C-alpha cells in the first residue's frame, strides 16, 4: 500500500499541473469524448498512433481531482508504449480498482489510487479518462487489423 501522504502529493501534483493536458485539433489523433452520466466529469482523450505504438497522448476537459489526476497519470504511463503494452497497463489498473490481483510494478504513480475501490462513489472518477484511452487504443488496433 502506498503511503497516504505520498499518494496525496502525487494526486495534488497531477491535478494542479496535469501532464499532456491540451486540446488537439490535429486530425491524425483519434479522440473519444467521455461524459459521465452520474457526475460532471467531461473529458476528451486523444491518441496518435503509428499503427503499432502510441506516439502521443493528450486529454482535455473538465474533471474533479480524481478524474484529472488519474487521466494525467495514465497518459504518462501509456505514452510511447505499444498498443498491447498500454492495454496491459490499463488492465492492471482496472484490476486494482476492481479489487482483483494486480501488478503494482506496472502502475507506478497510478498506485496512488490503490484504495480508491473503497470509495464507491469515486471509482468512476478514476476510470473515466482511462476508459477513454482504452477505447481509443482498441479502435486503433481495429483500424490496424482492417488495413
Amino acid at each position, binding site marked *: 500500500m502506498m503511503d497516504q501522504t505520498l*499518494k*496525496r502529493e502525487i494526486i*495534488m501534483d497531477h491535478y494542479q499541473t496535469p501532464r499532456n493536458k491540451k486540446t488537439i485539433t490535429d486530425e491524425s489523433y483519434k479522440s473519444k469524448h467521455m461524459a459521465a452520466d452520474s*457526475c*460532471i*466529469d467531461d473529458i476528451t482523450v486523444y491518441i496518435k498512433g503509428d499503427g503499432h505504438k502510441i506516439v502521443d497522448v493528450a486529454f482535455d476537459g473538465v474533471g*474533479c*481531482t480524481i478524474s484529472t489526476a488519474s487521466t494525467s497519470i495514465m497518459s504518462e504511463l501509456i505514452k510511447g508504449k505499444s498498443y498491447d503494452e498500454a492495454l496491459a497497463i490499463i488492465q492492471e489498473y482496472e484490476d486494482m480498482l476492481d479489487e482483483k490481483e494486480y501488478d503494482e510494478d506496472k502502475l507506478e504513480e497510478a498506485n496512488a489510487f490503490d484504495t*480508491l475501490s473503497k*470509495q464507491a462513489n469515486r471509482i468512476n472518477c478514476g476510470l473515466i479518462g482511462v476508459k477513454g484511452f482504452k477505447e481509443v487504443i482498441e479502435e486503433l488496433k481495429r483500424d490496424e487489423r482492417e488495413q
Partner: protein
Amino acid sequence: MLDREKIRKDFPMIQSEESKGRIYLDSAATSFKPKCVIDKVTEYYTKENANIHRGDYDLSYQVSSEYEQVRKLCAKFLNAPSEKNIVFTNGASSSLNLVAYGYGQKFLTSEDIILSTEAEHASNILPWFKVSEVTGAKIEYVPLDHEGVFDLEAYKKILREAAGKIKVVTLAQVSNVLGNIIPLKEIVRYAHENGAIVCCDGAQSVPHIKVDVQDLDVDFLCFSAHKMLGPSGVGVLYGRYELLEKMDPFMLGGGSNARFDICGNILLKDPPFKFEAGTPCVEGVLGFGEALKYLMDLGMENVEAEGKELHKYFLDEMAKLDNVTVYNPKSETSIVTFNINGIFAQDAAAYLNSQGIAVRSGNHCAKILLNVIGASETIRASLYLYNTKEEIDRTIAVIKEATLEKCIGAAI
C-alpha cells in the same frame, strides 16, 4: 412555530441508528418521508390491497373511496375549485409532459410562440422542444439578470411586442438551481391579458411555499409528491377544468374510457379520469394523502415562513465565510448554490459526504449558470422542514475548514 425537534422524531431516516451524524441537504432532489406516510403505504399492502374503481366488493370500494379522498385533500391543499381539477400522474415530469403533449401538441401551430426562461429544469423545457418540433411553434426565453432573477419588465415587453402570438408561458415558480421565487401572480395576469395560458412547474415551490391556484389564477400546475414528504411515483397536474376537457390524454386504456366498441369508437371519461389510464400507484397516492395531512397540520404558512428563516440563516452564515462563492445570495427558499473556492464542485461534495453531509454537485443547468453567473459546476444544498440550525452550523464548520488536500485525502 414549527417544532423541528418534534418533527425530526417523525422521520425514520433521521431517527435510525445508521443516520447518526448524517446531515441531509438534498431535499430538492427528494425529501425524507414521515412515518405516517410509510405506514400508510405498508397498510395498503397489508390491509387494503385491492384495485381502485373496479371491484364490487367492500375492499375495492373502500380503497377507491380513500383514493378519491386524497384527490379532495389535494384540491383543498391547493385551494383548487374542485377535486376534478386534480389529475394524478407519476411525477412532475409526467405532469409537464402531459400538458406539452395534450395541450401544446394539440393546439399550437407554426404561427405560435412558447415563452419560457433560461432557468428551466429539463423536464419543463424538453417536452416543449418536442412541441416545437411537431407543431413548428417557436420557443423564446425571458432573460434573467446576473443573479438569475426573472426579469419581469423584459417579460412584459416580450408579451406586448409578440402581439398575441405567445400562446403558452411555461416556467418554474421556484428555480431548481437558484431557488428564486418568481412573481407568478403578476406573470399569469399579464399572460392572460395577452392571450397566453401559463403552465407552472411547481416541483420546487409547492413543497415550500403556500400555493393557492385560484389566487394565482395559474392554468396548469405540475409537481411531485416525493419532494413534499410523499412517496415517489406520484405527481399531480392541477389544471383549469375547461382546459383539461379540451386536452388529449397521453395514454389510453383501462379506467380512462367510459365505453368503446369494435369499430374504434371511444368515449372517454371526463377529466381527471380520462388522463388516468391503467392502474395507478395506489399506495403512493394514499401515502401522499398522509403527506398532505402532515403539511396541512403544520400549516403551509408556517412551513413557508420558517423555511425562509432557516434558509436566510444558512445564507447569512455562508456570507461570513471567505472561502466560498454563493451564487444565489438573494434567493428565498431552501436552495443554496455555491462553490468552495479553488475546489471542483464534485471534490467538495465528496468531501462533505466523507463528513456525513449529503449535498449535490453538478451542472444543474449549465446554460443559465455559465451565462448568467459564470460557473458551470456548483454544489447545491437544499433544506426542508426537518433540517436544523445545528446542522447548518456543522455544515458551515466543515466548509470553512475544507481544503483541496482534505478533499483528496477523503477519496484515497
